[in-house]
């Protein structure tokens, strides 16, 4: 039980780290959104599942409610994260941000 919680949380943290490195390293903001929209979803899911397991140590109504609410946060993040990504990328496309391509790389 404890081992499962630790493994899930550490995997989530590793994915969060990769996401953050991606946000800092990718060349333009379309590719940064690739990192932001996907990495966040899965790592939030992993860490919140771990916390749900940890808080659900004995079966009673209060614990069940807490677990259900954490599950609600997970479901909400799953719907909201792609939608927010979509809204941001649409705003960028409308205001005319040029996507980075291999050809547009300056020679230096």
């Amino acid at each position: 039980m404890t081992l499962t919680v630790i493994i899930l949380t550490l995997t989530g943290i590793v994915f969060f780290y990769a996401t953050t490195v991606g946000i800092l390293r990718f060349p333009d903001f379309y590719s940064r959104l690739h990192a932001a929209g996907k990495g966040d979803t899965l790592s939030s899911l992993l860490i919140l599942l771990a916390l749900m397991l940890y808080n659900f140590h004995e079966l009673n109504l209060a614990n069940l409610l807490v677990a259900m609410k954490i599950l609600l946060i997970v479901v909400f993040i799953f719907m909201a994260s792609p939608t927010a990504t979509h809204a941001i990328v649409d705003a960028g496309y409308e205001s005319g941000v040029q996507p980075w391509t291999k050809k547009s790389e300056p020679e230096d």
Partner: protein
Amino acid sequence: MDSFFIGIGLALCFLMLLTMHRAIHGPTAIDRIMGVNVIGTKTTILLVIIGTIYHRVDMFVDIALAYALLNFIVTIAASRYFQHHKNLLPEGYGFKHKSEGEK
């Protein structure tokens, strides 16, 4: 187990500081919105972790839920607002500046 969760929370804070670089330095306004959105997702998780550490998850999980909702609405509203502001991009990032050919 508590010290493990404190360590996880500190790691999340460190990652939030790294993301703060993107939220402050830009280069476009939309990058900043993205940085704020990512920081908000991490804050939601951090709130649940804080609740676990203080043994008051039943209270903190409500705050986390409200924070997730607010974060989503902020992102949608800000990106809708910037959608029609074509002059907010710095030099060299849009179609417009490139076609004027200042280089």
